């Protein structure tokens, strides 16, 4: 069985936020909601300072605390490891949001627009009332992964079945693929490089792997 993960090559990221913009476009998220965003972390003291750009979002944990706490079973995990939300049964209690150590979940109660108090064409066309007052988050563009299954394509290789953020990345930072397949792009990247996963000590077994140096 596949286990879809994402790799993030921190050596390459320049913090351009193109992934953020493409995610917002692909998923029509409202203002202030960024399923994929890039942190700008400054560290050290002058003159020895570092600046790191770190894409974050839902880590699609193998042991997701958000799913365990969800009282309605709205949060579920697919066989391929992707964690999703059934908007039709979510009660919007926010328990998943406080259980997620990656701050990846959002709940929006009021419809807001990017410019002024009226929706633009895109916002009007793609408004989804099902997503109001329920939890939402990155889906790893699971609709594309499903399309891959139906059409014999490979997520992470064929662009039409690869998450929007990965497709848009101008620096080759993000990669997506099957961790269980030793020949996949992500497995090979992880075999060749040193990596960590964020907050791994919390036992969530996250599905985003951050590459920080070669082996």
């Amino acid at each position: 069985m596949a286990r879809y993960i994402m790799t993030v090559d921190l050596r390459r990221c320049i913090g351009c936020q193109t992934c953020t913009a493409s995610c917002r476009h692909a998923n029509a998220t409202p203002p202030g909601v960024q399923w994929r965003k890039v942190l700008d972390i400054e560290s050290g003291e002058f003159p020895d300072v570092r600046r790191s750009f770190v894409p974050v979002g839902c880590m699609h944990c193998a042991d997701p605390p958000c799913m365990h706490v969800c009282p309605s079973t709205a949060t579920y995990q697919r066989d391929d490891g992707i964690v999703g939300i059934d908007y039709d049964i979510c009660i919007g209690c926010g328990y998943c949001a406080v259980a997620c150590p990656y701050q990846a979940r959002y709940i929006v109660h009021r419809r807001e627009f990017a410019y002024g108090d009226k929706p633009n064409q895109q916002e009007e066309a793609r408004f989804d009332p099902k997503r109001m007052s329920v939890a939402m988050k990155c889906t790893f563009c699971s609709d594309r992964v499903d399309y891959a299954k139906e059409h014999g394509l490979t997520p992470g290789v064929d662009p039409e079945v690869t998450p929007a953020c990965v497709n848009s990345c101008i620096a080759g930072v993000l990669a997506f693929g099957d961790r269980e397949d030793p020949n996949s792009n992500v497995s090979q990247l992880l075999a060749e490089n040193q990596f960590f996963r964020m907050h791994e000590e919390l036992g969530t077994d996250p599905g985003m792997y951050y590459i920080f140096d070669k082996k």
Partner: protein
Amino acid sequence: MSDIKIPPGRVTPWHQTNWDWRAAGNFIGGGTGTGLLFFATLAAGSVDNYRIMALVALACIGVGLTCVWAEIGRPFRAINVYFHPQTSWMTREAIVAAPLFLCALAAVWFGGGLFVGTAALLGVLFLYCQGRILHAAKGIPAWREPKIVSLILATGFVEGAGLATMLAALLPGAGPRWLAAVLLGALILRRLAWTVYFKALEKSGLPKKAMEVLRPFGAKFEMLGQLAPEILIVIGIFYGAVLPGLTFVAGLVALAAGWWLKYTIVARAAYNQGYALPSLPVRGQGEVMPGVKPGWTK
């Protein structure tokens, strides 16, 4: 409920915006109500007094659950809360609530019998579920500390004993003399639970902002919420005949301190995990640098 929106570019932990005073209200009402239901079995003194105490307890629990209902985004889907007993402590709390109310109402109706003890035990179970709800919230370091379960239990018992002491002072013929000693014992347990919880947080590390809330709170809580009622009870034991209101005031202070504690932990110290890098990446000709965990005590 306010929208969950993450400040763009925020790296250090920030205060979660989803569970506010209404969530704290559930823990306050639930703890007070279940604690009172437990002590009512011992302290009521008569069937009529038990009925009053049990109804007050159910009102407290009911207000707490109403607070939760008022906070959820889709309140008319609330029945879906029962869907996940396999792992969700929120579901388990809801499942326990139904027989708890039925047993307590039956105990009130019949004025005693097996329902009294069953309702008290279900109340303890409900309180335990509340502790586990907080413990399972892995995104909030001040909540996920395992010692919070015993703190929630101890606080619920203090609130219940405090309110039972107050009602016993008001109701005719209620309240054995040893009730004040029980409250003192519960207070000592709560002091111990708080100390163990706070030391565990200091040891494991906490977002600095959460520590800035809890450390000054702890100093005041130990003096006003713990020491003051403890002294009042001890004085009451010796001079109760001269100053009959002392145990009532001690119960009130102990109860109020429990509410203050829960409000502080649930609504004020709820800073999230933030982000961390175990190693800084190699950039250009640089080398791997030690990681960063912005906004944490350690």
